[in-house]
């Protein structure tokens, strides 16, 4: 799937990978997120190297509906002791803002799937 922007000089075409990476990076800026999780809900493995290069693996971009609205699903792991709903809300907010700010993309929905909680100590 690609996103097209048209201006007076021509077209800009961006793959969903780009959007996924931006969304992933934006999410990482948010407090309380300790990792991105596999979106396939399988156990994490070598293929799930969710370092910066691969963080888009925890992100799913869909284009649906009559308006071709953009929907984003983020699969995350949060830290124990944070208010999960608020952490998720902050991420939604940040992702929506960053995508609008950087590529002028209006995101319809940002769904957060909390796949795990990291309990330390």
């Amino acid at each position, binding site marked *: 799937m690609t996103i097209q922007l048209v201006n007076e000089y021509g077209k800009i075409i961006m793959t969903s990978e780009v959007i996924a990476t931006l969304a992933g990076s934006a999410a990482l800026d948010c*407090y*309380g*997120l300790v*990792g991105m999780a596999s979106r396939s809900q399988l*156990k994490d493995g070598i*293929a799930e190297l969710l*370092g910066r290069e691969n963080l888009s693996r925890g992100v799913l971009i869909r284009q649906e509906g009559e308006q071709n609205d953009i929907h984003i699903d983020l699969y995350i792991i949060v830290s124990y002791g944070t*208010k999960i709903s608020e952490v998720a809300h*902050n991420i939604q907010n940040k992702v929506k803002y960053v995508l609008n700010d950087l590529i002028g993309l209006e995101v319809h929905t940002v769904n957060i799937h909390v796949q795990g909680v990291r309990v330390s*100590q």
Partner: protein
Amino acid sequence: MSKVFINGTDFMNMVLSGANVLHSNVEKINSLNVFPVPDGDTGTNMNMTLTSGIEYIQSKSSDHIGEMAEAFSKGLLMGARGNSGVILSQLFRGFTKAVQERNEINVVQFAAALQQGVDTAYQAVVKPIEGTILTVAKESAKHALFISHQTDQVIELLEEVISEAKQSLARTPDLLPVLKQAGVVDSGGQGLVFIYQGFIEALKGNFHVDNEINHTDSQQITTNKPKPAQSSIATEDITHFYDMEFFIHLSKEVIFDESVLRKKLAEIGDSIVLIPDDDFVKVHVHSNSPGDVLNLTIRYGELTRLHIQNMRDQHREIVEEAGSIQENETFNEIDETSVEPNLEPKTFGMVTVSSGEGISDVFRSIGVDYVLFGGQTMNPSTEDLVKAVESIHAKYVFILPNNSNIILAAQQAKDLIEDKEVIVIPSKTIPQGLSAALALQDMNDSDENEKIMNQAIQDVHSGCVTIAIRDSQMNGISINEGDYLGIQENQIVTASNEIVDTSKELLKQMITPDNEMLTVFTGESVIVQHTDLLIQFVEEFYPDIEIEVIEGGQPIYDYIFSVE
């Protein structure tokens, strides 16, 4: 006046006063908010978070600081709003853990509790953004630990904490470019300073619920504080120097298009923040022609709550003030660095051995500090390993040899290194090394990590495909020179003269119904069509398996498989 211990009642007064000072400055904090989303609500969020904390603490009445802190921390957690609110709840969660069992605390315990708050807050985030409330909390807590050995007066300690917090706040624009760009200090950090400021007011006995007194008091703080950050910029460098902020009450007749206004404003100014609400738009812009900005925006409706300030003017004042502040502070800074050198080693480092750029990149991307080149035919020497370990500034270094022939050299390297603890994880294959490296967690201690990493090695199945260099007979399989060998762990399990057949056969032996994931590292001489055939085969026969293909670029092995 003088205080050596803080009990539960003191603590309650401190947080009430802190909340009060913050409350009086909500708008000020809101106006600083540019990160993570410039929606101007940090102050509001922190205020709501604190209000919830206060509700909980007021429902309790005890002299036991542990109980009071627990109530407050619970309230913060329940009412956490926004990033800054969540961080605040974590800071006090850690603080509470430290004082839980105590009736009252002295300066040393207070400083330790601040530090534990910071530790807890930092654990809850994958990538701490420095230049935020986190940094301010961290640096002031560190200073508190230092000062706590020099005084037993809580007020004195807090004064030092606040002074350090202010300096730290002033440095935030140097850490976070977006702050510098907007010419502000971090809003959350500013909020924390206000809270600390409230703490000390309470201890000094200046705390009145009367808003006005606190308001003027903190107003004064506000104007002094954020300034030194900007003294690094020359006054003339401020190109757009009228700082304008106002609301447009949108008129019903005009269609408001945010992007159009933004574009037009960008032509005559910068640092533009537009926050549209239902019928209001908040506008913040720096411009040299304030008249044009007003003419442009007034078309959309009535303008209210206009603030226009000359930033050059403000800046000149700042620079003058900053000069005088700096003289006082040099003493502290020198003192601190001599006690705590900045080059603190990190806890864990990793050295691994790999061949192929692709694989090395993967290792680096998951946090391995040093990747030595080597493999089946070219093993790094003990000396190479020692050098690699020495180059890492860490307390514990894990060596992942990824080859049975290198394990011994790694053991020897371990014996030669004295200034740090070396732990060898006996990984025999690349997939094992990757699994082990992934398992390392900073929050665990070294024993725990060693255990987890060794376990990770057991959990992954490795296979590889390579060419036979001579005729032989092994495990009942006859092998001709030039045949492709399928090796599972370190046993040859299949061989044929066709690479795809060998690979298929090997995978059939490796994959069990429990497996969920296959990672394929392709060698430097692999043909793409072969890989495609292989993927097709796996997709067809093992539909439940997720496949990841990584260009490993390794010599000798055409394919390295990892099955989990």
